[in-house]
């Protein structure tokens, strides 16, 4: 599990890669939180995430809520079909915007 940061069209992008299971989460949790809430507005790119379940969702929701307190917004981008299903099943997609690609997410800001 890795976390990396770059910019896309002037917006901070935090990309997660690998399995967001218990072990994966432990290895990126602190770095992700720091990266995703360093400044208002962030895109969290999930296109390289192979697995997401409730522990991972918890981490994404916490970062979204912190972004809201910063006056910014967290947008999710690029989940594969199966990861999208998890977001939909929990209803998270209705409270945290999800975009097909990071590009699309960037234009939504």
């Amino acid at each position: 599990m890795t976390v990396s940061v770059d910019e896309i069209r002037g917006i901070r992008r935090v990309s997660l890669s690998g399995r967001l299971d218990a072990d994966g989460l432990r290895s990126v949790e602190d770095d992700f939180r720091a990266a995703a809430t360093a400044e208002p507005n962030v895109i969290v790119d999930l296109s390289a995430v192979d697995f997401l379940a409730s522990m991972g969702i918890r981490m994404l929701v916490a970062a979204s809520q912190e972004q809201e307190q910063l006056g910014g917004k967290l947008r999710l981008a690029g989940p594969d079909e199966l990861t999208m299903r998890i977001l939909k099943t929990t209803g998270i997609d209705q409270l945290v915007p999800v975009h097909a690609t990071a590009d699309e997410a960037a234009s939504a800001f």
Partner: protein
Amino acid sequence: MIRRELLTGLPGPALVSAASRWSQRFGQELGLGHADLYRVEVCVEELTTNLAKYGGEGCAGRPAHLSVEVHDQRLRLELVDACAPFDPLAVEPAPLPAALSDLALGGRGIQLLLGLSEDRHYEYRDGCNRLTLVFDLEQPVTPPGPPDGLAEVAAFRDVPAAALDEALGALTVQDVADDLPLLERGDANHSVYFVLAGAVRVYLDRPGGEDFTEIGAGECIGEMSVIDELPASAHVHATAGTRLLVVDAPTFLARVLAVPGVARNLMSAQAARTRRNDRVTIERTRRLMAMEQAQREMELAHDIQASLLPAEPLLPEDHRLECAGRMYPAREVGGDFYDVIHLDDHHLLFVVADVCGKGLPAALFMVRAIAALRAQPRGTPPSEDHLSALVASLNDQLCERNPALQYLTAFFGLLDLRTRQLRYVNAGHPPALLARGDAPFVSLEDPVNPPVGMVPGLGYRPGEVRLEPGSRLLLYTDGVTEAEDESGGMLGEERLLAHCRSLTAGPSTDLADAVLSAAREFAGGAVQSDDITVLAVRCPSEPDAGESVTPEAP
């Protein structure tokens, strides 16, 4: 072949991680499609995190069991745990809040269980929560092959794979995440466990102790009690990370044993185990006998040492002086000794000594010292510097051939029985206590000399004092002053002195006994770490009125 995959572990965060690795493994071994496995894995995580969060305390160390089984394109995931009764399916899913800020962290898990599985069932039975989720698999699965490690099982060596597959029919592969009991002694056993990876430990005595036999990969356990239908004869625990093939008793007896080669393999494994156990038993018996022999020798050494000390009552014939000695060794044999020797009709040599160290080496050194002391020429009146020369000579003798660098501290006294003039040499020893006439006890502090046996060629400076009638002298080893109570505090010289001053003047046996019991009472229940030795000396109150002083029997 139908395979049931079982994971057993204690509820907690470690089980969440173990369950995640377990699901990836069975996904691969059962040939599940990516989308199917994803759904199942999400539910496994949900169940195990909930268990870690809510169930941990109620389970009181009882393990939870997760299992999956595939039948006709349907996968059943079951969680059995011994936590407080709780039906997650009865929980009304919380409606999604309107604002992100109102969303509870981690509160959406039930939606995952409901939304990702096709069917669900909960019941509380036999003290356990039993939750089953059913998944209709989208991608076709082929029947799984034998589990890894099966080919290495000794019982199945040279057994045709097809015959074994057919005999096993439905099998359970169990992963054990923590060190957990499989069987307790006295339990009825219904399964045979073949170790595929890791190890199980068979405790003949106390489970979790040091005395166990390890059953490693390729071996099996439980076949005996399945065959003879007797309760398990030992405690069997699996170590964390162990993988087992579990075969139920009817399948094992009716089908697996009937496969050609299996029975013979099992018997030869049993024969090897019996031989190994025999070797262990023989070795243990041999060690026990050696220990008993050593114990007997120590007891003998103790008796020999006790016989080397002068017999009580000391000096029964000489009424010019009255002496009593006492010694309690810390172990069977100690390094302390005392002695009282007439050098001629009017001169008495007495000594209390403490050899460094304890046990047999100290006792042997003590024997050397006593032998050297008793070899002193007798019968001629000792010269002025006799005592210093005697100690110096003993020092030189004990320095010779002393590779273990042993030494002793001692208090030597040489008393002229006519004049009651005492010369003494203190060689690194606690000072003697002296009560002159009716005066209270004081320490004989000076002069202090080095211990005996350390450095050859030393001279020893004597002290001198006259003992008035009624004087009492107490020699002792540091086992008295360093007697420790249970909190580690020491009796100390001050307390010893105070105690001696509080005693009424009486025969030497009383003084010796009083000091000895003071040290032992001070120690209370604490283990005695050093030999305790005292020698009490008293000059009769009236010169030549010795007849009135009758030494008491010990």
